[in-house]
């Protein structure tokens, strides 16, 4: 039984691995080799490798502001999503289980409403009452938070569901901890993995979101990259590749953190209080 499973495992891993790695290798060659695309073949595998295109794009005056804006938007969106969802999901689990189904449906709205409808609707509704949503860069944050809802809600929901929440909360409160202390000292540490996963995913969404920022005429990293593609296609591809590598590294770090969780048997033993 075990042997058969092992026999099947490797081809599956190879096919799935190839599905991800082959396009990345193709991207790498396109971005880093100064060879016309029609000549990119086996013969030119080692010819004219360079990072000039990537460096040209990175050193462009407009790149850094766009990149920093996306990073800032990513960080603020993560904070907004966590501030919104952590208490909400806690409340749904502890006090309002009957509302969970409704919350799940609402969290899916981002998939149902297309970005253009979201932008047009938000612009129309808030242009006069809350003009900063349309006029400032950080007006993108509420829209990005909506985009992050489907998976952010589910990740946190799964994190809360994995805990014996009622018992932990009651134990903490019976030992004298207030709600805030319970949240900070008991729940947040036990939701660390769910919070990190939510944060990384939300950040990745913001770093890659194009439609809304383009429609609202904001120069974020994705809109800049589309612009730059016309001028320096190799550089834009290089930046895309770099982002992919960064995201992969982030998720590897996340994996390491998960392994270090106290519930893992490989955890080192810590000290007394």
């Amino acid at each position, binding site marked *: 039984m075990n042997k058969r499973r092992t026999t099947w495992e490797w081809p599956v891993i190879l096919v799935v691995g190839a599905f991800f790695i082959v396009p990345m290798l193709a991207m790498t060659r396109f971005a880093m080799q100064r060879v016309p695309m029609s000549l990119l073949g086996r013969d030119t595998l080692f010819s004219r490798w360079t990072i000039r295109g990537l460096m040209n794009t990175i050193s462009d005056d407009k790149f850094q502001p766009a990149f920093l804006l996306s990073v800032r938007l990513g960080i603020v969106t993560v904070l907004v999503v966590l501030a919104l969802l952590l208490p909400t999901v806690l409340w749904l689990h502890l006090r309002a289980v009957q509302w969970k189904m409704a919350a799940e449906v609402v969290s899916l709205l981002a998939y149902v409403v297309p970005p253009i409808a979201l932008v047009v609707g938000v612009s129309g509704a808030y242009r006069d009452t809350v003009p900063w949503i349309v006029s400032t860069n950080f007006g993108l944050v509420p829209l990005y938070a909506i985009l992050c809802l489907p998976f952010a809600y589910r990740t946190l929901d799964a994190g809360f569901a994995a805990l014996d929440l009622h018992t932990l909360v009651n134990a903490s*409160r019976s*030992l*004298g901890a207030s709600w805030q202390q319970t949240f900070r000292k008991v729940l947040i540490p036990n939701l660390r993995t769910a919070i990190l996963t939510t944060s990384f995913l939300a950040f990745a969404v913001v770093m890659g979101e194009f439609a809304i920022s383009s429609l609202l005429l904001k120069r974020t990293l994705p809109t800049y990259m589309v612009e730059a593609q016309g001028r320096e296609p190799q550089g834009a591809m290089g930046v895309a590749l770099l982002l992919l590598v960064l995201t992969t590294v982030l998720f590897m770090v996340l994996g390491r953190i998960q392994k270090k969780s106290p519930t893992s048997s490989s955890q080192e033993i810590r000290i007394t*209080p």
Partner: protein
Amino acid sequence: MSQLEFAHVTKKYGDLEALSAFTLSIQKGELISILGPSGCGKTTALRVAAGFEKFDAGRLIMNGHNIEPVPPQKRNMGMVFQSYSLFPHLTVAENIGFGLSIRKMEKKKRVSVVSDMLDLVRLVDVGHRYPHQLSGGQQQRVALARALAIEPTVLLLDEPLSALDAKVRVEVREEIRSLQKRTGTTTLFVTHDQDEALTISDRVCVMSNGVIQQVGTPQEVYDNPSTDFVATFIGETNSVTIAGNEVLVRPEHTRVVSDAEPDSYRGIVQNFSFAGPLKTVVVRMSVDESLVRATMTNTVGTEWTMGQEVGIVFDHILRPTT
């Protein structure tokens, strides 16, 4: 003055009355068990005491003060739960020290108290471990140490042994009683297991459908049950008709004798089982066809066969049924 007093506490969930004018007074240093079947309201009573449930009527008094408006974190009640409630991200020592750090106890003193508590529950060597590295029995002992570390006014135990296997359950049960006596902590213990309640309690409060049936020492509730529910819920009973009256008799007060013995009721042996020093004989009474169980010490020379005609003697009538 009692340390904790429920005075006519009523708690409703919709139309269901989980506690009906619940009145119970717990003296300082006493261990009281609330015993009853599932859904009888015993855990609700405990949660009301802890402050996790609001109640609809009555008063809850601790050391002479009404504590109804006091939130759970300010009641100073240590609680041990049915499921393992240790914080998974903290070591055993950190778990025990949790309540102390919340109280802002200085580190040196905290470490000393934690060390004393580990000593008290005989887990000195596992202070650095995480909860998942402990057995179920060890986890509940740590939970007990954590609850005792804050020197609670009242210790609340919510079926803390029910997740443990039989052998460990007996060990931890004895440990709870021993620690409670040593520390003199007033304790409210909720269980559905009569053995647990009878062996470790100063007094037992038997509940059914949100109503207290009887409060008394284990001996009192066993020997003199005040209701049929108490008589049948605690220990075993035979329901038999004697002189036209239906009565309850304990199997250990029922004797199977040879057919010839005078003043005995007639019956036929239906079944018997052997359990070392004790044996149980099931006899069908001739008078009303009811089945009667007799538990007797296993003496040499008293052997019964299926279908044998025998006499039955009732040494002590527990109570007439109502």
